[in-house]
Structures are given as C-alpha cells and as structure tokens.
C-alpha cells in the first residue's frame, strides 16, 4: 500500500483519523521505507525545534516589553532601597537592574515541548508545568554539588529551601542546549521554575560554586525564593537522604 507524502506527514504530526492511522501503522510493519520516511519527518521536526528554541531563552528586548505593558518597563530598583526594603540583606545576589525585565520562561516552554518527538528532552511538560526529565531529573535527585564530577553533563549549583518549604536547586547543562535554570521539588517531580541560557551571565559575586556560573535570571529567581541560607554540603546530603521531601 502506498501513502502520499501528505498522509505520512499528517501521521507524523498525529493528525490522521484513527482508521487511516491504523492503516499507516499496518503498512509500516511490512514496509521499512514507510517507517523510515516517518522517522525522517520526526527527525526534521526535532531539528526545527532545536534551531529555534534558543529564541525563547533570549531576554526580551525592553521596547517590546514596554509596548506590551503600555508603560516604560519598570527596572528593579538597585539604588533606591530606602523605598523598597530588601528582605534578605545577608544573602544578596547582585542586582541586575537592567536585566530585571528579562523573563521567567517557566510557563512558556509548555507548548514548545508538547510535540517533542524524541523523548530525549531535559524538560517534560504536563498540565502546563515544566518538569525535569531524563538526565536533568536524575542529576537533580541524585547529584551533590559537593561531590559531582566536573565532567557531569548537568552541574548542580546552589541547593536551598524556598519559603514554601520546598527544596530547590539551580543547575547548568553542559551540552548543546546550554540551558541553566532553577527547579523546585514537588510531590513527585522537579518543577522547573526558571529556564534560560547559561552563556548569558557575567561572572562575579562570591558564593557561586566554581564551574556553574549562575545566569542573572536564575540568580534573581533564587533571590526571590530562598528562605535563609543555601544548604551546605551536609544539608544537601541530608535533603537527598530524605528524598527532597519537605
């Protein structure tokens, strides 16, 4: 049985009616060429996604934010602390005033990854939330910043308790994606709160573990969430032993 490109393309996108999809699947079992064409369509889609995904992690230009908001985008006050008392003076990441308007990507990655055909992404999307997946999920659950090998594909940065009581950890992915972010432990999964590109952050400021520079968007989320001080090596190990439960 032969199928048109349109039919196979629609099959790859999950857009065929059940009967036609079943016919394609039956044919696929006997005809490797059909299976291969569909695999090619999906591989192409994965490459397309990869080619354009970095745009999501770019800081949104100020002029666009200003148009959308209808007012000049507010910058985080870095020199007017008298007006806005800062809650945690002892643990203060640098104020990236000019970057304040860059986004928290959290809710936006959903639609991007819904169709990801490879199953190989570090992020999974369920119910509009981004959840850590695969190597990222394993690193968040198992890796300790104090003992992780320098060559680990995911580097864990700071682990801390959020004001909600949940354990959160920052991470940098040392692969092509260059993603960096912050995830907090929910009941059964790591929820990714911030995701950005790791190459955008200037170095500086102590307290930052070597080899895992924290991009501004991540530092900002950390600053917003953290209760008290980051976990030290013993605290990190104890939290892991407790399964990262509150």
């Amino acid at each position, binding site marked *: 049985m032969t199928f048109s490109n349109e039919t196979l*393309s629609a099959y790859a996108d999950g857009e065929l009616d059940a009967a036609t999809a079943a016919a394609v699947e039956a044919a696929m079992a006997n005809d490797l060429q059909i299976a*291969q064409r569909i*695999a090619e369509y999906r591989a192409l889609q994965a490459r*397309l996604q*990869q080619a*354009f995904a970095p*745009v999501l992690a770019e800081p*949104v230009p100020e002029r666009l934010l200003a148009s959308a908001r209808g007012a000049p985008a507010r910058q985080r006050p870095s020199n007017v602390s008298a007006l806005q008392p800062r809650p945690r003076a002892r643990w203060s990441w640098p104020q990236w005033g000019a970057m304040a308007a860059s986004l928290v990507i959290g809710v936006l990655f959903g*639609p991007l990854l819904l169709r990801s055909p490879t199953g190989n992404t570090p992020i999974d999307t369920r119910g509009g939330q981004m959840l850590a997946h695969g190597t990222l999920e394993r690193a968040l659950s198992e890796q300790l910043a104090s003992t992780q090998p320098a060559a680990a594909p995911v580097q864990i940065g700071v682990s801390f308790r959020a004001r909600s009581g949940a354990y959160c950890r920052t991470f940098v992915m040392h692969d092509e994606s260059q993603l960096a972010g912050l995830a907090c432990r929910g009941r059964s999964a790591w929820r990714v709160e911030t995701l950005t590109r790791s190459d955008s952050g200037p170095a500086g400021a102590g307290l930052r573990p070597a080899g895992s520079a924290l991009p501004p968007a991540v530092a900002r989320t950390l600053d917003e969430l953290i209760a008290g001080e980051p976990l030290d090596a013993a605290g990190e190990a104890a939290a892991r032993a407790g399964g990262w439960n509150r």
Partner: protein
Amino acid sequence: MSVDGLREELVTLLPRLRRFARVLARNVHDADDLVQTAIERALAHAGQLRTGAPVAGWMFGILRNAWIDEQRARGRRTALLAPAESGENVADPSRGEPADSLAVQDAVARLPQEQRLAVALVLVEGLSYKEAAHVMEVPIGTLTSRLARAREALQAMLGERNGA
C-alpha cells in the same frame, strides 16, 4: 477582552511571538519589529477578542498579517529599487549558534512564504492542523499539503537522511 488582561497575556506570550517571528523573518531586528507591530495592532483591537479565547492563535494571526503586509511593502520597494540585498534572511553571525541550527534556519528562510508559515505554526509552535489552518485562513487540506511540501523541500535542502 480588556486591554489590561490582554497586556498581561502579551507579556507572557512575548518569547513565543518572538520565536514565531524569527521563523518568518529570521533577522532579529525585522522579527522584533513584526512583534512590535503585532502588539500594537492587537492592543488596538483588544475588544474583538472574547474573554477566554486563545490569545496565542489570535496573536499568531495578527503577526502573520503584519508579516504579509510587510512583505508586500518590501516587494514594492525592491521593485522600485535595484534588486539589492533584501536583508530579510540575513542571520546575525555573532550569535554563535550551532552549525546545524544555522543550516536549518537557512533552509527555512528559503521556503516560500506559505510553506514557511505552515512550518512555523505546526512544526515549531506546535499548533494543531486545525488551529494553524485557522491562523492562515485556509482549509485544513491546503495546510496539510503545504506542510508536506515544506517537509520535502527542507529535506532536499538539508540533504541528510535521518536528520543528523
């Protein structure tokens, strides 16, 4: 929908709108100009959007129209002037993206407009055929065949079997 409600949704949508525009126009500045135009048009017509209606699809439609308008205007300009660099498909070489991403972006930029739109909406933004056809104002069958042709063209340009 209220203008304030729309503003909030737009701020959330900005990264996706920028990505969609980048598939269409590629050059960062042209793409962001399109996003800006689309935001302005959307805010001027916020009343047309029902509360609870999907803002993303509506915005993609507005951005698509802005792009088509822009292409027409550009066509008029280049018809009057010499066939100079259109600038539309120029990537920013300073961005340091992986070679494969650049090759894919190049290939997408060479697709005809309507095929590029189909790719942007379905394969990059993940819209269903029905949603994408609605944004493009064409029947689903038309969208389906544009998408299939776009895939064939991309595979021919990228010239590899099984993706990498």
